[in-house]
């Protein structure tokens, strides 16, 4: 079924994630197939509740099984299945082979320890560096992520740093052991516009120089325009469109992508266009096409049949019944 699944550095196949409600799993992410290659940056875009963060974090198995579980599918790291890996081995994967950057740098760093300690902690866990060698590596890392005066910063506590600097520390922590896969979960949502640009460029350039396979999740398509090679758009727990960045921006094939692009300031002259209505609550998905209730192009048939994610070209797939008949507007056209 999955011809290319074993090619990518990280490949996700048939992934289903469920919330546990009253002891009963309710699927909130269904049938997600994704793969990222070495040196490639994949953007995973969707509104909150679309399941993009769950999908990206499923690979790390950091989700609390009392609340949310991966109920089907596979996550492979260079062909090695992660979902069935014993916890002890999984620990060697986390931080060492997969680096993770979280959304909120304000709460994601431990307030009780210096950033130097927190950085060297993971390093010394995965390598046999001595204390002094780890400290040197930490200083090196802080310089690499663009933190000025690392020798002063290394002994500071998170509350003494600005939001942007903290996110740089998070990045340093994620790349400390030179992982092969980098997962950044909304890395810039909590930051100012100016800092956001810096952080994204940093992540993207690190991805290239360190030859990592990178997944960035975000709700803002504008943010990923220049840093991603490919973009997958998620809606209501499904991938609705997946294409190279240029394809997706200039020739969107799913109404949701089109609407998402129209929501950005500067894409169209005049008033901003939102998407009418609300996304469905997790797990309570409508029949047929899940976007149909909000779709301006919906026909009665859309609510009846479940559209498949159909490959349109080698590098473009969309999940829309009317894809062939619709002329959708991209940006800049």
């Amino acid at each position: 079924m999955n011809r290319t699944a074993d090619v990518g550095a990280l490949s996700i196949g048939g992934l289903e994630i469920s919330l546990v409600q009253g002891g009963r799993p309710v699927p909130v992410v269904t049938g997600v197939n994704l793969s990222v290659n070495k040196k490639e940056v994949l953007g995973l875009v969707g509104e909150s509740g679309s399941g993009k963060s769950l999908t990206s974090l499923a690979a790390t198995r950091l989700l609390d099984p009392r609340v949310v579980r991966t109920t089907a599918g596979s996550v492979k790291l260079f062909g090695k299945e992660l979902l069935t890996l014993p916890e002890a081995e999984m620990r060697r994967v986390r931080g060492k082979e997969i680096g993770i950057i979280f959304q909120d740098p304000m709460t994601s760093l431990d307030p009780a320890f210096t950033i130097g300690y927190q950085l060297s902690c993971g390093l010394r866990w995965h390598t046999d560096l001595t204390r002094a060698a780890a400290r040197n590596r930490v200083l090196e890392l802080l310089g690499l992520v663009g933190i000025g005066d690392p020798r002063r910063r290394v002994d500071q506590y998170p509350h003494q740093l600005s939001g942007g600097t903290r996110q740089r520390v998070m990045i340093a922590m994620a790349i400390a052991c030179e992982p092969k896969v980098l997962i950044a979960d909304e890395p810039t949502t909590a930051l100012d516009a100016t800092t956001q640009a810096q952080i994204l460029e940093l992540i993207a350039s690190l991805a290239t120089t360190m030859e990592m396979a990178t997944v960035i999740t975000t709700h803002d398509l504008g943010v990923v325009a220049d840093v991603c090679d490919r973009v997958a758009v998620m809606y209501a727990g499904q991938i609705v469109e997946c294409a190279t960045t240029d394809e997706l921006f200039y020739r969107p094939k799913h109404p949701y992508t089109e609407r998402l692009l129209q929501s950005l300031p500067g894409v169209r002259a005049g008033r901003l266009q939102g998407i009418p209505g609300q996304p469905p609550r997790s797990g309570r998905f409508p029949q047929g096409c899940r976007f149909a209730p909000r779709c301006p192009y919906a026909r009665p048939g859309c609510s009846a049949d479940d559209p498949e994610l159909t490959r349109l070209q080698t590098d473009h797939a969309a999940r829309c019944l009317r894809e062939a008949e619709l002329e959708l507007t991209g940006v800049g056209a």
Partner: protein
Amino acid sequence: MSGISGRGPVVALVGGATAGRGAKPANRFVQKAAPLLRMVARRVGIAVPLLVLVSFSVFAISSISTADPARAILGEGATPQSVAQLRHQLGLDQSFLHRYWDWLSGVAHGGLGNSWYGNIPVLTKISQGLPTTISLVLAAMILTAVVGIPLGLYAGMRRGGKVDTIANSLAAIGLAMPEFWVALVLILLLSVKLRVLPGTGALTLSGDPWQAARHLVIPVVAIALPQICALYRQTRASAAIVAQQDYVRTARAGGISEWSLLRTRVAKNALVAPVTLLGLQLGRMIGIAAVVESVYGLHGIGSIAVQAALTSDLPVVLGVVLVTAAVVMAANLLTDIATYYLAPKARNS
């Protein structure tokens, strides 16, 4: 040292880092400790006026009390003349401000006044009871911390687990048990029925240490039991909150094992509230010790205070209250110092 080697940037980095760390150690220590010393000075500076205020309140309240200590001392049958004479002798016929001033100047000279019975200095009485109470409370505190904190950390990390469920039920029951009743039941079980431990009886700490320790087991357990439960609950609640924080997830994402996560990250972050509670528990334990000492026939400052209260011997009671308050304030200072190290964020405020 970096200048000599010159083997590329990495070595230079090593040298630089080491030099930076070793530079003027004395200065750095002073610089680092300065906020802590300021905090200690401030706390001590506040404690003294607070103790004065406490003693003043006791004098003021006793002055509005309708109970007459002189009559209480002499008994109902005493003649008005002898009562008046004793009142004069004890200085009770003077205004309370005057009495307070006398007492305060006594304190300035290193005393806490004399007992109304037999003119024994209050400090002498207290120092007789202090060793017993200190060994009781210290042992109980150590027991409390050693059992309550690790159990709480573990249960908080694994809420809903086996340890958590069992410990929660036990803690609920433990908190509901009166200490002196626990002491009575333990005496009934361990000394009357099973005869493994000595029952009630005066304790001489100067004697055989093994015997003294055996004497202490029941009262220490009785004092510690509810405090262990309280500390366990506090620790568990704190650990449960910490376990849900984003930074714990960050540490997990770095591959750290659950055990070392608990030992380092969770422990340091979750201990602020339990340590503060432990400081307050010292006070509670001294209070509870008063009852347990009486049950067990121990001669501690608690039983001294109870005897004094029953005989309206105000100077002794006041002395015990002040000594207790001073000890608790000192304990709170220690917990503040601990907090200083546990929570760097709170240092600047």
